[in-house]
Protein backbone atom coordinates (compact mmCIF):
# COMPACT_ATOMS: atom_id res chain seq x y z
CA UNK A 1 0.00 0.00 0.00
CA UNK A 2 1.50 3.29 -1.03
CA UNK A 3 2.17 5.95 1.55
CA UNK A 4 3.42 9.46 2.16
CA UNK A 5 6.89 9.45 3.66
CA UNK A 6 9.22 12.24 4.78
CA UNK A 7 12.32 10.99 3.05
CA UNK A 8 15.80 12.11 4.04
CA UNK A 9 18.20 12.96 1.25
CA UNK A 10 21.24 10.67 1.33
CA UNK A 11 22.81 11.89 -1.90
CA UNK A 12 21.92 14.34 -4.64
CA UNK A 13 24.65 14.22 -7.19
CA UNK A 14 25.10 15.45 -10.73
CA UNK A 15 26.34 12.45 -12.64
CA UNK A 16 26.50 13.91 -16.11
CA UNK A 17 25.75 17.57 -16.83
CA UNK A 18 22.05 18.22 -16.33
CA UNK A 19 21.28 14.80 -14.84
CA UNK A 20 21.30 13.97 -11.16
CA UNK A 21 20.90 10.93 -9.01
CA UNK A 22 18.89 11.49 -5.86
CA UNK A 23 19.06 8.87 -3.15
CA UNK A 24 16.39 8.97 -0.50
CA UNK A 25 15.97 7.16 2.78
CA UNK A 26 12.35 6.12 2.53
CA UNK A 27 12.11 2.66 4.05
CA UNK A 28 8.34 2.34 3.78
CA UNK A 29 8.38 3.05 0.09
CA UNK A 30 11.61 1.16 -0.60
CA UNK A 31 10.21 -2.00 0.99
CA UNK A 32 7.39 -2.11 -1.53
CA UNK A 33 8.70 -0.48 -4.69
CA UNK A 34 8.94 -2.66 -7.78
CA UNK A 35 10.61 -1.91 -11.13
CA UNK A 36 8.46 0.37 -13.28
CA UNK A 37 6.77 2.02 -10.33
CA UNK A 38 7.28 5.67 -9.55
CA UNK A 39 7.26 8.11 -6.69
CA UNK A 40 5.61 11.52 -6.57
CA UNK A 41 7.77 14.18 -4.97
CA UNK A 42 6.59 17.44 -3.41
CA UNK A 43 9.23 20.00 -4.33
CA UNK A 44 9.45 22.80 -1.79
CA UNK A 45 6.85 23.42 0.85
CA UNK A 46 5.10 26.51 -0.48
CA UNK A 47 2.21 26.74 -2.93
CA UNK A 48 4.52 27.31 -5.88
CA UNK A 49 5.32 24.83 -7.32
CA UNK A 50 2.03 23.28 -6.31
CA UNK A 51 1.88 19.80 -7.78
CA UNK A 52 4.09 16.83 -7.05
CA UNK A 53 6.59 15.67 -9.67
CA UNK A 54 6.66 12.01 -10.71
CA UNK A 55 9.94 10.06 -11.04
CA UNK A 56 10.60 6.41 -11.74
CA UNK A 57 12.36 4.28 -9.20
CA UNK A 58 15.85 4.09 -10.68
CA UNK A 59 17.29 1.84 -8.04
CA UNK A 60 16.16 0.42 -4.74
CA UNK A 61 18.10 -0.91 -1.81
CA UNK A 62 15.38 -2.53 0.26
CA UNK A 63 17.73 -3.48 3.07
CA UNK A 64 18.98 0.02 3.60
CA UNK A 65 15.53 1.43 2.83
CA UNK A 66 16.95 3.70 0.15
CA UNK A 67 15.45 4.47 -3.21
CA UNK A 68 17.27 6.30 -5.94
CA UNK A 69 15.85 8.31 -8.78
CA UNK A 70 17.64 9.63 -11.84
CA UNK A 71 16.34 12.95 -13.00
CA UNK A 72 16.94 15.44 -15.72
CA UNK A 73 16.77 19.14 -14.94
CA UNK A 74 14.09 20.39 -17.31
CA UNK A 75 12.12 23.05 -15.48
CA UNK A 76 11.40 24.75 -12.24
CA UNK A 77 10.68 21.71 -10.09
CA UNK A 78 13.70 19.72 -11.16
CA UNK A 79 15.75 22.92 -10.99
CA UNK A 80 14.80 23.32 -7.34
CA UNK A 81 15.51 19.67 -6.68
CA UNK A 82 19.03 20.09 -8.01
CA UNK A 83 19.67 22.63 -5.23
CA UNK A 84 18.76 20.26 -2.41
CA UNK A 85 21.40 19.15 0.05
CA UNK A 86 22.10 15.96 1.92
CA UNK A 87 20.13 15.74 5.14
CA UNK A 88 17.15 17.75 3.94
CA UNK A 89 13.81 15.99 3.81
CA UNK A 90 11.40 15.60 0.94
CA UNK A 91 7.72 14.69 1.08
CA UNK A 92 7.40 11.61 -1.11
CA UNK A 93 4.31 9.65 -2.12
CA UNK A 94 4.76 6.12 -3.38
CA UNK A 95 5.30 3.59 -4.65
CA UNK A 96 2.76 4.29 -7.37
CA UNK A 97 1.62 2.67 -10.56
CA UNK A 98 1.69 -0.79 -12.09
CA UNK A 99 5.17 -2.31 -12.23
CA UNK A 100 6.77 -4.11 -15.14
CA UNK A 101 5.56 -7.66 -15.32
CA UNK A 102 8.39 -10.09 -14.75
CA UNK A 103 7.17 -13.43 -16.02
CA UNK A 104 8.55 -16.25 -13.82
CA UNK A 105 10.65 -18.00 -16.41
CA UNK A 106 12.36 -15.09 -18.14
CA UNK A 107 15.59 -16.29 -19.72
CA UNK A 108 16.71 -13.56 -22.07
CA UNK A 109 15.43 -10.03 -21.91
CA UNK A 110 16.37 -6.92 -23.81
CA UNK A 111 15.96 -3.40 -22.41
CA UNK A 112 15.83 -0.39 -24.69
CA UNK A 113 16.19 3.03 -23.15
CA UNK A 114 16.46 6.45 -24.76
CA UNK A 115 17.79 9.42 -22.81
CA UNK A 116 16.28 9.72 -19.34
CA UNK A 117 14.02 6.85 -20.38
CA UNK A 118 16.76 4.69 -18.83
CA UNK A 119 15.39 5.68 -15.41
CA UNK A 120 12.92 2.82 -14.91
CA UNK A 121 15.13 0.25 -16.66
CA UNK A 122 18.08 0.09 -14.28
CA UNK A 123 16.12 -1.25 -11.34
CA UNK A 124 14.35 -3.57 -13.75
CA UNK A 125 17.73 -4.84 -14.93
CA UNK A 126 18.81 -5.43 -11.35
CA UNK A 127 15.76 -7.49 -10.50
CA UNK A 128 15.94 -9.38 -13.80
CA UNK A 129 19.55 -10.28 -13.15
CA UNK A 130 18.75 -11.35 -9.60
CA UNK A 131 16.17 -13.68 -11.03
CA UNK A 132 18.81 -15.21 -13.26
CA UNK A 133 17.78 -13.75 -16.60
CA UNK A 134 20.41 -12.79 -19.18
CA UNK A 135 19.92 -9.10 -19.74
CA UNK A 136 20.95 -7.07 -22.78
CA UNK A 137 20.54 -3.32 -22.56
CA UNK A 138 20.50 -1.04 -25.54
CA UNK A 139 21.14 2.48 -24.36
CA UNK A 140 20.58 5.43 -26.65
CA UNK A 141 21.28 9.13 -26.30
CA UNK A 142 21.88 12.14 -28.48
CA UNK A 143 25.54 12.20 -27.61
CA UNK A 144 28.08 10.28 -25.51
CA UNK A 145 27.90 12.65 -22.54
CA UNK A 146 24.19 12.02 -22.14
CA UNK A 147 24.40 8.24 -21.94
CA UNK A 148 22.88 7.16 -18.66
CA UNK A 149 23.06 4.15 -16.41
CA UNK A 150 25.97 2.43 -18.17
CA UNK A 151 28.03 1.87 -15.04
CA UNK A 152 25.10 0.58 -13.04
CA UNK A 153 24.22 -1.88 -15.79
CA UNK A 154 27.78 -3.10 -16.33
CA UNK A 155 28.15 -3.61 -12.61
CA UNK A 156 25.25 -6.04 -12.68
CA UNK A 157 26.71 -8.02 -15.54
CA UNK A 158 24.29 -6.72 -18.12
CA UNK A 159 25.45 -6.81 -21.72
CA UNK A 160 25.39 -3.17 -22.74
CA UNK A 161 25.16 -1.76 -26.25
CA UNK A 162 25.17 1.90 -27.07
CA UNK A 163 23.82 4.11 -29.82
CA UNK A 164 24.26 7.85 -30.13
CA UNK A 165 22.62 10.16 -32.63
CA UNK A 166 25.92 11.84 -33.36
CA UNK A 167 28.05 8.70 -33.32
CA UNK A 168 30.22 9.98 -30.48
CA UNK A 169 29.95 6.56 -28.82
CA UNK A 170 28.69 3.16 -29.97
CA UNK A 171 26.62 2.76 -33.09
CA UNK A 172 25.70 6.02 -34.81
CA UNK A 173 21.97 6.28 -35.09
CA UNK A 174 18.89 5.61 -33.06
CA UNK A 175 18.23 2.74 -30.71
CA UNK A 176 16.13 1.07 -33.36
CA UNK A 177 19.24 0.89 -35.58
CA UNK A 178 20.97 -1.01 -32.81
CA UNK A 179 17.94 -3.13 -32.01
CA UNK A 180 17.28 -4.68 -35.39
CA UNK A 181 20.57 -6.63 -35.51
CA UNK A 182 20.06 -7.79 -31.91
CA UNK A 183 16.63 -9.15 -32.67
CA UNK A 184 17.91 -10.85 -35.78
CA UNK A 185 20.80 -12.53 -33.98
CA UNK A 186 19.31 -13.52 -30.65
CA UNK A 187 16.12 -15.00 -29.38
CA UNK A 188 14.68 -12.88 -26.57
CA UNK A 189 11.70 -13.70 -24.37
CA UNK A 190 10.72 -10.17 -23.60
CA UNK A 191 11.53 -6.58 -24.45
CA UNK A 192 11.14 -3.53 -22.17
CA UNK A 193 11.37 -0.02 -23.47
CA UNK A 194 11.23 3.54 -22.19
CA UNK A 195 12.05 6.78 -23.97
CA UNK A 196 10.46 9.41 -26.17
CA UNK A 197 7.12 8.24 -27.51
CA UNK A 198 8.13 8.15 -31.19
CA UNK A 199 11.05 5.91 -30.23
CA UNK A 200 8.80 3.61 -28.21
CA UNK A 201 6.42 3.44 -31.15
CA UNK A 202 9.21 2.33 -33.46
CA UNK A 203 10.51 -0.22 -30.95
CA UNK A 204 7.00 -1.58 -30.41
CA UNK A 205 6.63 -1.88 -34.14
CA UNK A 206 9.88 -3.75 -34.51
CA UNK A 207 9.10 -6.04 -31.59
CA UNK A 208 5.78 -6.81 -33.22
CA UNK A 209 7.50 -7.67 -36.48
CA UNK A 210 9.82 -10.04 -34.64
CA UNK A 211 6.95 -11.56 -32.68
CA UNK A 212 8.45 -10.41 -29.41
CA UNK A 213 6.27 -9.51 -26.43
CA UNK A 214 7.15 -6.44 -24.48
CA UNK A 215 6.22 -3.51 -22.30
CA UNK A 216 6.75 0.23 -22.37
CA UNK A 217 6.63 2.85 -19.60
CA UNK A 218 4.70 5.98 -20.58
CA UNK A 219 4.67 9.57 -19.34
CA UNK A 220 2.00 12.22 -19.18
CA UNK A 221 1.50 15.37 -17.11
CA UNK A 222 0.20 14.32 -13.73
CA UNK A 223 -1.61 16.00 -10.89
CA UNK A 224 -2.52 13.32 -8.34
CA UNK A 225 -0.49 10.27 -9.34
CA UNK A 226 -3.11 7.96 -7.80
CA UNK A 227 -5.87 7.73 -10.38
CA UNK A 228 -8.16 10.42 -9.04
CA UNK A 229 -7.75 13.47 -11.28
CA UNK A 230 -7.95 11.70 -14.66
CA UNK A 231 -5.28 14.09 -15.89
CA UNK A 232 -2.74 11.55 -17.07
CA UNK A 233 -4.84 9.84 -19.70
CA UNK A 234 -3.30 7.95 -22.58
CA UNK A 235 -4.95 6.16 -25.48
CA UNK A 236 -5.03 2.39 -25.60
CA UNK A 237 -6.56 0.26 -28.29
CA UNK A 238 -10.12 -0.86 -27.84
CA UNK A 239 -11.15 -2.93 -30.82
CA UNK A 240 -10.91 -0.68 -33.85
CA UNK A 241 -11.28 2.35 -31.63
CA UNK A 242 -9.41 3.60 -28.56
CA UNK A 243 -10.20 4.46 -24.99
CA UNK A 244 -8.34 6.42 -22.30
CA UNK A 245 -6.52 4.84 -19.40
CA UNK A 246 -4.83 6.58 -16.50
CA UNK A 247 -1.08 6.28 -16.76
CA UNK A 248 -0.51 6.70 -13.05
CA UNK A 249 -2.88 3.95 -12.09
CA UNK A 250 -3.32 1.48 -14.95
CA UNK A 251 0.26 2.26 -16.02
CA UNK A 252 2.83 3.70 -16.38
CA UNK A 253 3.74 0.24 -17.72
CA UNK A 254 1.65 -1.04 -20.60
CA UNK A 255 1.94 -3.89 -23.01
CA UNK A 256 3.51 -2.62 -26.23
CA UNK A 257 0.65 -4.02 -28.23
CA UNK A 258 -2.12 -2.15 -26.43
CA UNK A 259 -0.77 1.41 -26.57
CA UNK A 260 -1.86 3.94 -29.21
CA UNK A 261 1.37 5.92 -29.48
CA UNK A 262 1.36 9.70 -29.95
CA UNK A 263 3.83 10.18 -32.76
Amino acid at each position, binding site marked *: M*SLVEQAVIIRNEEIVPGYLELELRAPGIARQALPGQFINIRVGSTLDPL*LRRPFSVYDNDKNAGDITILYKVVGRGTGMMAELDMGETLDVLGPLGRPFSLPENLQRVVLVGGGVGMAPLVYLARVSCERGAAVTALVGARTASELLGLNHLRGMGVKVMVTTDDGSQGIQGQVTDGLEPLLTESDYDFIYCCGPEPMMARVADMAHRYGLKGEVALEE*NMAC*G*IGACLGCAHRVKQGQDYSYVQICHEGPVFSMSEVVFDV
Partner: protein
Amino acid sequence: MSERNQVQAEVNMEVNLGGIALANPVTVASGTFGYGREYEAYVDLARLGAIIVKGTTLEPRAGNPTPRIIETPAGMLNAVGLQNPGVDVFIQEHLPYLREKQATVIVNIAGNTVEEYARLTAILDKQDGIAGLEVNISCPNVEKGGLQFGTDPNTAAGVVAAVRQNTSLPVIVKLSPNVTDVVAIARAVVEAGADALSLINTLLGMAIDIETRRPVLANIFGGLSGPAIKPVALRMVYQVAREVEVPIMGVGGIVNWQDALEFILAGATAVSIGTGNFINPGISEQIIDDLENYLVEQGIRDIRQLIGAAWL
Protein backbone atom coordinates in the same frame (compact mmCIF):
# COMPACT_ATOMS: atom_id res chain seq x y z
CA MET B 1 -12.07 6.19 24.59
CA SER B 2 -9.49 7.17 21.98
CA GLU B 3 -8.02 10.61 22.00
CA ARG B 4 -9.96 11.53 18.89
CA ASN B 5 -13.27 10.40 20.35
CA GLN B 6 -12.62 12.48 23.39
CA VAL B 7 -12.16 15.52 21.21
CA GLN B 8 -15.33 14.73 19.34
CA ALA B 9 -17.26 14.47 22.56
CA GLU B 10 -16.11 17.89 23.62
CA VAL B 11 -17.04 19.79 20.46
CA ASN B 12 -19.76 19.49 17.88
CA MET B 13 -18.60 19.29 14.28
CA GLU B 14 -21.92 18.15 12.79
CA VAL B 15 -23.61 20.38 10.25
CA ASN B 16 -26.65 20.04 8.09
CA LEU B 17 -26.26 20.92 4.45
CA GLY B 18 -29.77 21.38 3.11
CA GLY B 19 -30.99 18.11 4.54
CA ILE B 20 -27.74 16.17 4.35
CA ALA B 21 -26.39 15.42 7.82
CA LEU B 22 -22.62 15.71 7.71
CA ALA B 23 -20.50 14.38 10.57
CA ASN B 24 -18.27 17.37 10.00
CA PRO B 25 -18.09 20.19 7.46
CA VAL B 26 -15.17 18.75 5.49
CA THR B 27 -16.07 17.14 2.17
CA VAL B 28 -13.98 16.30 -0.88
CA ALA B 29 -14.76 17.92 -4.20
CA SER B 30 -16.06 16.31 -7.33
CA GLY B 31 -13.44 15.26 -9.84
CA THR B 32 -10.62 15.35 -7.35
CA PHE B 33 -11.35 12.28 -5.25
CA GLY B 34 -12.34 9.75 -7.89
CA TYR B 35 -14.81 7.33 -6.33
CA GLY B 36 -13.12 7.29 -2.95
CA ARG B 37 -11.27 4.05 -3.59
CA GLU B 38 -8.22 5.93 -4.89
CA TYR B 39 -7.79 7.46 -1.43
CA GLU B 40 -8.51 4.50 0.81
CA ALA B 41 -4.81 4.10 1.58
CA TYR B 42 -4.63 7.66 2.90
CA VAL B 43 -8.01 8.56 4.39
CA ASP B 44 -10.69 6.90 6.51
CA LEU B 45 -13.47 7.39 4.00
CA ALA B 46 -16.23 7.07 6.56
CA ARG B 47 -14.83 9.95 8.50
CA LEU B 48 -15.22 12.57 5.79
CA GLY B 49 -18.19 14.89 5.97
CA ALA B 50 -19.01 13.61 2.51
CA ILE B 51 -17.40 12.31 -0.65
CA ILE B 52 -18.61 14.08 -3.75
CA VAL B 53 -17.89 11.70 -6.56
CA LYS B 54 -16.64 12.52 -10.05
CA GLY B 55 -19.17 14.22 -12.33
CA THR B 56 -21.50 11.50 -13.58
CA THR B 57 -23.39 11.51 -16.86
CA LEU B 58 -26.08 9.33 -18.35
CA GLU B 59 -23.75 7.74 -20.90
CA PRO B 60 -20.04 7.02 -20.53
CA ARG B 61 -17.77 9.88 -21.61
CA ALA B 62 -14.27 9.36 -22.98
CA GLY B 63 -13.06 12.79 -21.97
CA ASN B 64 -10.68 15.12 -23.76
CA PRO B 65 -7.39 14.38 -25.49
CA THR B 66 -4.17 15.09 -23.58
CA PRO B 67 -2.50 17.19 -22.25
CA ARG B 68 -5.38 17.64 -19.87
CA ILE B 69 -3.61 19.33 -17.01
CA ILE B 70 -0.90 21.89 -16.42
CA GLU B 71 0.37 23.56 -13.33
CA THR B 72 -0.05 27.34 -12.99
CA PRO B 73 1.12 29.70 -10.24
CA ALA B 74 -0.38 28.26 -7.02
CA GLY B 75 -2.96 26.51 -9.14
CA MET B 76 -3.63 24.18 -12.02
CA LEU B 77 -5.70 24.02 -15.15
CA ASN B 78 -7.66 20.92 -16.05
CA ALA B 79 -9.56 19.94 -19.14
CA VAL B 80 -10.46 16.38 -18.26
CA GLY B 81 -13.77 16.79 -20.04
CA LEU B 82 -16.05 14.89 -17.66
CA GLN B 83 -14.46 11.53 -18.40
CA ASN B 84 -16.64 9.02 -16.53
CA PRO B 85 -18.01 5.54 -17.07
CA GLY B 86 -21.64 6.66 -17.00
CA VAL B 87 -24.28 6.34 -14.32
CA ASP B 88 -24.89 2.61 -14.75
CA VAL B 89 -21.28 1.66 -14.14
CA PHE B 90 -21.20 4.10 -11.24
CA ILE B 91 -24.16 2.35 -9.63
CA GLN B 92 -22.87 -1.14 -10.28
CA GLU B 93 -19.18 -0.74 -9.54
CA HIS B 94 -18.56 2.29 -7.38
CA LEU B 95 -21.63 2.90 -5.26
CA PRO B 96 -21.56 -0.54 -3.56
CA TYR B 97 -17.95 0.05 -2.55
CA LEU B 98 -18.76 3.44 -1.05
CA ARG B 99 -21.78 2.01 0.75
CA GLU B 100 -19.65 -0.74 2.20
CA LYS B 101 -17.11 1.85 3.39
CA GLN B 102 -19.99 3.74 5.05
CA ALA B 103 -19.10 6.92 3.26
CA THR B 104 -21.57 9.77 2.98
CA VAL B 105 -21.96 9.97 -0.78
CA ILE B 106 -23.01 12.98 -2.82
CA VAL B 107 -23.27 12.35 -6.54
CA ASN B 108 -22.21 15.17 -8.83
CA ILE B 109 -24.34 15.08 -11.97
CA ALA B 110 -23.86 16.65 -15.37
CA GLY B 111 -25.66 16.70 -18.68
CA ASN B 112 -25.93 18.46 -21.99
CA THR B 113 -29.70 18.85 -21.97
CA VAL B 114 -32.31 19.43 -19.29
CA GLU B 115 -33.73 16.05 -20.23
CA GLU B 116 -30.41 14.35 -19.48
CA TYR B 117 -30.28 15.91 -16.01
CA ALA B 118 -33.85 14.81 -15.38
CA ARG B 119 -33.27 11.18 -16.41
CA LEU B 120 -30.01 10.96 -14.50
CA THR B 121 -31.72 12.25 -11.40
CA ALA B 122 -34.57 9.79 -11.71
CA ILE B 123 -32.09 6.90 -11.96
CA LEU B 124 -30.04 8.01 -8.96
CA ASP B 125 -33.12 8.76 -6.88
CA LYS B 126 -33.84 5.04 -6.68
CA GLN B 127 -30.44 4.03 -5.32
CA ASP B 128 -29.51 3.29 -1.75
CA GLY B 129 -26.52 4.95 -0.20
CA ILE B 130 -26.78 8.36 -1.83
CA ALA B 131 -27.08 11.25 0.61
CA GLY B 132 -27.68 13.93 -1.98
CA LEU B 133 -27.04 15.20 -5.47
CA GLU B 134 -24.74 18.01 -6.53
CA VAL B 135 -25.83 19.52 -9.81
CA ASN B 136 -22.94 20.73 -11.95
CA ILE B 137 -24.41 23.47 -14.11
CA SER B 138 -21.07 24.49 -15.64
CA CYS B 139 -21.83 22.23 -18.60
CA PRO B 140 -22.40 23.30 -22.18
CA ASN B 141 -26.08 23.42 -23.05
CA VAL B 142 -26.13 21.78 -26.46
CA GLU B 143 -29.64 23.04 -27.14
CA LYS B 144 -28.41 26.61 -26.71
CA GLY B 145 -25.27 26.53 -28.82
CA GLY B 146 -23.02 25.26 -26.05
CA LEU B 147 -23.46 28.17 -23.69
CA GLN B 148 -23.12 26.94 -20.13
CA PHE B 149 -26.32 26.35 -18.19
CA GLY B 150 -24.77 28.06 -15.21
CA THR B 151 -24.19 31.43 -16.85
CA ASP B 152 -27.83 32.46 -17.08
CA PRO B 153 -30.34 32.52 -14.19
CA ASN B 154 -33.21 31.14 -16.27
CA THR B 155 -31.35 28.27 -17.85
CA ALA B 156 -29.77 27.42 -14.52
CA ALA B 157 -33.17 27.43 -12.85
CA GLY B 158 -34.51 25.22 -15.64
CA VAL B 159 -31.99 22.50 -14.89
CA VAL B 160 -32.59 22.71 -11.18
CA ALA B 161 -36.36 22.53 -11.52
CA ALA B 162 -36.04 19.40 -13.64
CA VAL B 163 -33.75 17.79 -11.07
CA ARG B 164 -36.03 18.84 -8.23
CA GLN B 165 -39.05 17.21 -9.87
CA ASN B 166 -37.31 13.90 -10.13
CA THR B 167 -35.98 13.37 -6.65
CA SER B 168 -36.67 13.77 -3.00
CA LEU B 169 -32.94 13.68 -2.30
CA PRO B 170 -31.36 16.92 -1.11
CA VAL B 171 -30.22 18.92 -4.14
CA ILE B 172 -27.05 21.00 -4.01
CA VAL B 173 -26.41 23.25 -6.99
CA LYS B 174 -22.81 23.97 -7.88
CA LEU B 175 -22.38 27.45 -9.30
CA SER B 176 -19.96 28.65 -11.92
CA PRO B 177 -17.75 31.61 -10.99
CA ASN B 178 -17.49 32.75 -14.61
CA VAL B 179 -20.45 35.09 -14.31
CA THR B 180 -21.11 38.77 -13.80
CA ASP B 181 -23.62 38.35 -11.00
CA VAL B 182 -23.33 35.14 -9.01
CA VAL B 183 -25.98 36.29 -6.54
CA ALA B 184 -28.60 36.46 -9.30
CA ILE B 185 -27.85 32.89 -10.35
CA ALA B 186 -27.90 31.77 -6.73
CA ARG B 187 -31.31 33.32 -6.14
CA ALA B 188 -32.72 31.77 -9.31
CA VAL B 189 -31.62 28.23 -8.46
CA VAL B 190 -32.78 28.52 -4.86
CA GLU B 191 -36.17 29.59 -6.12
CA ALA B 192 -36.13 26.60 -8.46
CA GLY B 193 -35.71 24.30 -5.51
CA ALA B 194 -32.05 24.03 -4.55
CA ASP B 195 -31.58 22.90 -0.94
CA ALA B 196 -27.99 24.10 -0.83
CA LEU B 197 -25.39 25.70 -3.06
CA SER B 198 -21.79 24.87 -3.61
CA LEU B 199 -19.42 27.43 -4.96
CA ILE B 200 -17.19 27.72 -6.78
CA ASN B 201 -16.47 25.54 -9.76
CA THR B 202 -13.29 26.33 -11.69
CA LEU B 203 -12.47 29.64 -13.36
CA LEU B 204 -11.99 29.42 -17.11
CA GLY B 205 -8.33 29.85 -18.02
CA MET B 206 -5.59 28.81 -20.39
CA ALA B 207 -1.84 28.45 -20.74
CA ILE B 208 0.43 28.68 -23.76
CA ASP B 209 3.55 26.63 -24.37
CA ILE B 210 6.19 29.06 -25.54
CA GLU B 211 8.26 26.24 -27.04
CA THR B 212 5.57 24.94 -29.36
CA ARG B 213 3.75 28.32 -29.47
CA ARG B 214 0.46 26.51 -29.01
CA PRO B 215 -2.05 26.27 -26.16
CA VAL B 216 -0.79 23.71 -23.64
CA LEU B 217 -4.12 21.95 -23.20
CA ALA B 218 -5.46 19.93 -26.10
CA ASN B 219 -8.83 21.52 -25.28
CA ILE B 220 -7.24 25.03 -25.39
CA PHE B 221 -9.22 26.21 -22.34
CA GLY B 222 -9.34 24.58 -18.94
CA GLY B 223 -10.64 25.10 -15.45
CA LEU B 224 -8.41 26.91 -12.99
CA SER B 225 -8.40 25.48 -9.47
CA GLY B 226 -6.21 25.52 -6.38
CA PRO B 227 -5.04 28.18 -3.92
CA ALA B 228 -4.78 30.78 -6.71
CA ILE B 229 -8.58 31.03 -6.88
CA LYS B 230 -9.28 31.05 -3.15
CA PRO B 231 -9.82 34.83 -2.91
CA VAL B 232 -12.46 34.68 -5.67
CA ALA B 233 -14.21 31.67 -4.13
CA LEU B 234 -14.26 33.26 -0.71
CA ARG B 235 -15.70 36.48 -2.08
CA MET B 236 -18.50 34.63 -3.86
CA VAL B 237 -19.35 32.56 -0.77
CA TYR B 238 -19.47 35.73 1.32
CA GLN B 239 -21.67 37.52 -1.24
CA VAL B 240 -24.08 34.67 -1.77
CA ALA B 241 -24.35 33.41 1.82
CA ARG B 242 -25.71 36.76 2.91
CA GLU B 243 -28.35 36.82 0.21
CA VAL B 244 -29.85 33.34 0.20
CA GLU B 245 -31.48 31.25 2.92
CA VAL B 246 -29.97 27.90 2.00
CA PRO B 247 -26.63 26.64 3.31
CA ILE B 248 -23.47 26.98 1.26
CA MET B 249 -20.61 24.63 0.60
CA GLY B 250 -17.39 26.59 0.05
CA VAL B 251 -14.94 25.24 -2.54
CA GLY B 252 -11.81 26.70 -4.03
CA GLY B 253 -8.18 26.51 -3.04
CA ILE B 254 -8.54 24.99 0.40
CA VAL B 255 -5.28 23.32 1.43
CA ASN B 256 -5.34 23.62 5.22
CA TRP B 257 -7.66 24.21 8.17
CA GLN B 258 -7.07 27.95 8.11
CA ASP B 259 -8.42 28.07 4.55
CA ALA B 260 -11.40 25.96 5.56
CA LEU B 261 -12.07 28.25 8.49
CA GLU B 262 -11.97 31.32 6.26
CA PHE B 263 -14.79 29.83 4.20
CA ILE B 264 -16.83 28.98 7.28
CA LEU B 265 -16.36 32.50 8.63
CA ALA B 266 -17.44 33.81 5.22
CA GLY B 267 -20.71 31.94 5.60
CA ALA B 268 -20.09 28.40 4.41
CA THR B 269 -21.79 25.59 6.33
CA ALA B 270 -19.46 23.03 4.79
CA VAL B 271 -16.32 23.10 2.69
CA SER B 272 -14.96 20.94 -0.06
CA ILE B 273 -11.33 20.12 -0.78
CA GLY B 274 -10.38 19.74 -4.43
CA THR B 275 -6.89 20.29 -5.77
CA GLY B 276 -5.55 20.01 -2.21
CA ASN B 277 -6.09 16.24 -2.38
CA PHE B 278 -3.51 16.05 -5.16
CA ILE B 279 -0.86 17.77 -3.08
CA ASN B 280 -1.46 15.65 -0.02
CA PRO B 281 -3.82 12.70 -0.33
CA GLY B 282 -4.46 12.71 3.42
CA ILE B 283 -5.28 16.41 3.58
CA SER B 284 -9.04 16.08 4.08
CA GLU B 285 -8.76 14.01 7.25
CA GLN B 286 -5.96 16.25 8.47
CA ILE B 287 -8.21 19.27 8.11
CA ILE B 288 -10.95 17.57 10.13
CA ASP B 289 -8.46 16.91 12.94
CA ASP B 290 -7.08 20.42 12.80
CA LEU B 291 -10.51 22.07 12.87
CA GLU B 292 -11.50 19.96 15.83
CA ASN B 293 -8.35 20.96 17.65
CA TYR B 294 -8.98 24.58 16.84
CA LEU B 295 -12.45 24.41 18.37
CA VAL B 296 -11.07 22.76 21.49
CA GLU B 297 -8.28 25.28 21.85
CA GLN B 298 -10.59 28.20 21.33
CA GLY B 299 -13.22 26.77 23.63
CA ILE B 300 -15.86 26.77 20.92
CA ARG B 301 -18.34 23.98 21.54
CA ASP B 302 -20.08 24.03 18.19
CA ILE B 303 -18.58 24.76 14.81
CA ARG B 304 -21.87 26.23 13.68
CA GLN B 305 -21.16 29.26 15.85
CA LEU B 306 -18.47 30.21 13.35
CA ILE B 307 -20.62 30.10 10.21
CA GLY B 308 -20.79 33.61 8.80
CA ALA B 309 -18.99 35.09 11.81
CA ALA B 310 -17.05 37.45 9.52
CA TRP B 311 -20.15 39.21 8.29
CA LEU B 312 -20.07 42.86 9.10
